[in-house]
């Protein structure tokens, strides 16, 4: 009964944390939209070589409607009637980005990836060691490959039965996990081996 509670709490917790994570990323994005870095907005004009002038690149922090050659190119390297010809070759583009969003997103992603890798290491290395200590050496028989998937806890049923005797948190998590694994195994067997619909 308590393990059901625990499972439910775990589900609820994971659901909440997922949505909180997503909404916090969104919030960060909106906040960064409000407080733009000075360098994050600019109008960039690239002007190719013209007559004797070598080409040049001009950057300026300016609004989008003013982003053209006349506002950005300062000082103008040519005089008078040549200005129009010079400006016709220049390519001006308005660019903006949000460096804070990028930083936050990458760091959040790397931390989630790191947590998942730690969890994976725990599942593959630490858990069998812990189990061996709790339940004795004889329990952990490895079954052979089934459709290419390794099923490390083939006799989950026995482990389940024995685990009822002790009642601490680790056992409760263990119990919920074993029951889930047993369910998956049963389902797989009935669907792919016996070709029957689950009843």
């Amino acid at each position, binding site marked *: 009964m308590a393990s059901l509670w625990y499972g439910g709490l775990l*589900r609820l917790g*994971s*659901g909440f944390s*997922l*949505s909180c994570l*997503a*909404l916090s*990323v*969104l919030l960060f*994005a*909106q906040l960064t*939209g409000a407080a733009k870095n000075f*360098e994050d907005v600019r109008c960039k004009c*690239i*002007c*190719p*070589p013209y007559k004797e002038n*070598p*080409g*040049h*690149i001009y950057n300026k922090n300016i609004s989008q409607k003013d982003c053209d050659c006349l506002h950005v190119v300062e000082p103008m390297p040519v005089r008078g009637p040549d200005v129009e*010809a010079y400006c*016709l*070759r220049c*390519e001006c583009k308005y*660019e*903006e*980005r*949000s*460096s804070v*969003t*990028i*930083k936050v*997103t*990458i*760091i959040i*992603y790397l931390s*989630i*990836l790191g947590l*998942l*890798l730690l*969890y*994976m290491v725990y*599942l*593959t290395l630490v858990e069998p060691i812990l189990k061996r200590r709790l339940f004795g050496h004889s329990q952990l028989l490895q079954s052979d490959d089934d*459709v*290419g*998937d*390794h*099923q490390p806890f083939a006799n989950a049923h026995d482990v389940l039965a024995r685990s009822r005797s002790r009642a601490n948190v680790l056992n409760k998590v263990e119990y919920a996990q074993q029951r889930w694994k047993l*369910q*998956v195994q049963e*389902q797989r067997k009935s*669907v*792919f081996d016996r*070709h*029957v*619909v*689950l*009843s």
Partner: protein
Amino acid sequence: MVSAGAMSTSGNLMDFLDEPFPDVGTYEDFHTIDWLREKSRDTDRHRKITSKSKESIWEFIKSLLDAWSGWVVMLLIGLLAGTLAGVIDLAVDWMTDLKEGVCLSAFWYSHEQCCWTSNETTFEDRDKCPLWQKWSELLLSQSEGASAYILNYLMYILWALLFAFLAVSLIKTILSGFIIRGYLGKWTLLIKTVTLVLVVSSGLSLGKEGPLVHVACCCGNFFSSLFSKYSKNEGKRREVLSAAAAAGVSVAFGAPIGGVLFSLEEVSYYFPLKTLWRSFFAALVAAFTLRSINPFGNSRLVLFYVEYHTPWYMAELFPFILLGVFGGLWGTLFTRCNIAWCRRRKTTRLGKYPVLEVIVVTAITAIIAYPNPYTRQSTSELISELFNDCGALESSQLCDYINDPNMTRPVDDIPDRPAGVGVYTAMWQLALALIFKIVITIFTFGMKIPSGLFIPSMAVGAMAGRMVGIGVEQLAYHHHDWIIFRNWCRPGADCVTPGLYAMVGAAACLGGVTRMTVSLVVIMFELTGGLEYIVPLMAAAVTSKWVADAFGKEGIYEAHIHLNGYPFLDVKDEFTHRTLATDVMRPRRGEPPLSVLTQDSMTVEDVETLIKETDYNGFPVVVSRDSEQNARQRQEGIVSNSIMYFTEEPPELPANSPHPLKLRRILNLSPFTVTDHTPMETVVDIFRKLGLRQCLDVLRHMAQMANQDPESIMFN
């Protein structure tokens, strides 16, 4: 089973207002949904809420909340899908460039973001970027030379292998294998998002659009489980999932309308009109959220948004239709080869080593892809470069045209120019890249990693299209006095836009593989922002669909459904055999008689035995067994268990028998019946359009008629 003592024999009205049995009416995996029953349950629930809303203010507010919960769910789905797509885009951008080098000022910047802050001011230096260093520069302090090249090559391969290995181990360990229980669960959502980034960054020939639809559906499933209106009714939950799929495609392409049409055409089985409007809302919210995260720094949604408006000419329809034919042929080739390879994976020992397979394919892809600059960069960047028209200031190899030094035209109306050396080099490099992409995608799609098909198809089409476009452009320039060019292409004018050919080629290949029609055209013109190009896109899409349909009716998705043996009755198939219902009906001669339940004379023990002995999910309830053709003995002698009855009133019982069990509520009082002379066409139509259950005999019959193995439909 409910204990007999719990049931009462009170009046009929109470029966309808009681809560149904727990666990009756919930669906497990691989069960068909009974749409009619779900619809009637939803109507009942709505009627109950409406009638109660007149009682008090609180009930009225509750009814309002119930009405608005649909829109709230759509809003939440759009927000989460847009956010996840933005995170995926940014992370893929960074990790793809991590294979080649790292930014010194801030390690979280990709190549383009790093060069944003560079202070180069001279025109010749406009592509230099000292803040970004390749691995050879970082480790060996050399940027040219053989050793630098080899080191970069090695680092590229190592990073690709690392990403692929991490992705596949995460999937295998945390989701416990590749057959995902909880297909739309929260763990699936998290793992799929994380591994999608890893897999796309490792340089494999796959896209992220297909898996984004799955991610969006997981979001839809999650949010619909928070509201009881959707969590208890599978039919309404499927509507939410249709809308979520639309939101997924919308953020993948930046095409809200295309997303809704894609959901309508490819994804959904049952799409009432109300879902159309809700899907559009979800797609818009998702697109808006993605735009505000702004992953590409230019307020666009997709990396390859193009904006030119150069006109096209009627004579160009001929190469466009040629590209359509190429797309159809490629679609057929890809579908056949991919299905053959996947079937081999399922049946031989090859399928027993999924992790090793992923590692080997990644290694092969990385080793062959690095030398060619068009396969070294990520596929999205390649498509973006191919779609773009060459301006005067482009410095890429593909735009290495011989410029006239006296040219004074403005930058976006450059006349056709002869090709320089760079263009010829680019042409044969593109040809090699095309062959490589065609071959490697066949082996990549269908592996045990999140893989999508849209981007590789578009890349193949774009490469072919660009090559054709450059060919036509050079032909028009050098032979402008031929009859076909004389009318519309004067020398000194900008006649041919190779970027447009690339777009048309991409649409043709995508249509050839997936057999999408309207949604493809809408997605492509939402991608380009130009309504002028609808006619070429339609011409290519129609041609490619015709050519591909000439070789086989199935698109890639239907083919994979058939390969896996899922019991799916497609709405697009037509049943053309002239058989009757009696050919399918059971029992036939020589088979044991029909397993029936009588209406008021079977015991609980009998029913349990019947359920254990047979595999069926539903039983007909008859008045008595004598009404069958084969007369059977009546159940004689009442045993000590209780009697089950399906009628309104309990049967007459001796005084000392235990309390009877009433199960009328799980009885479907109006099942659809067909006579044995109903043509099979009608039967298939009834099952398809009404969405009934128990249609698997129909599927087996259809398979038999098509000379396929009926046992390949796996479910009984």
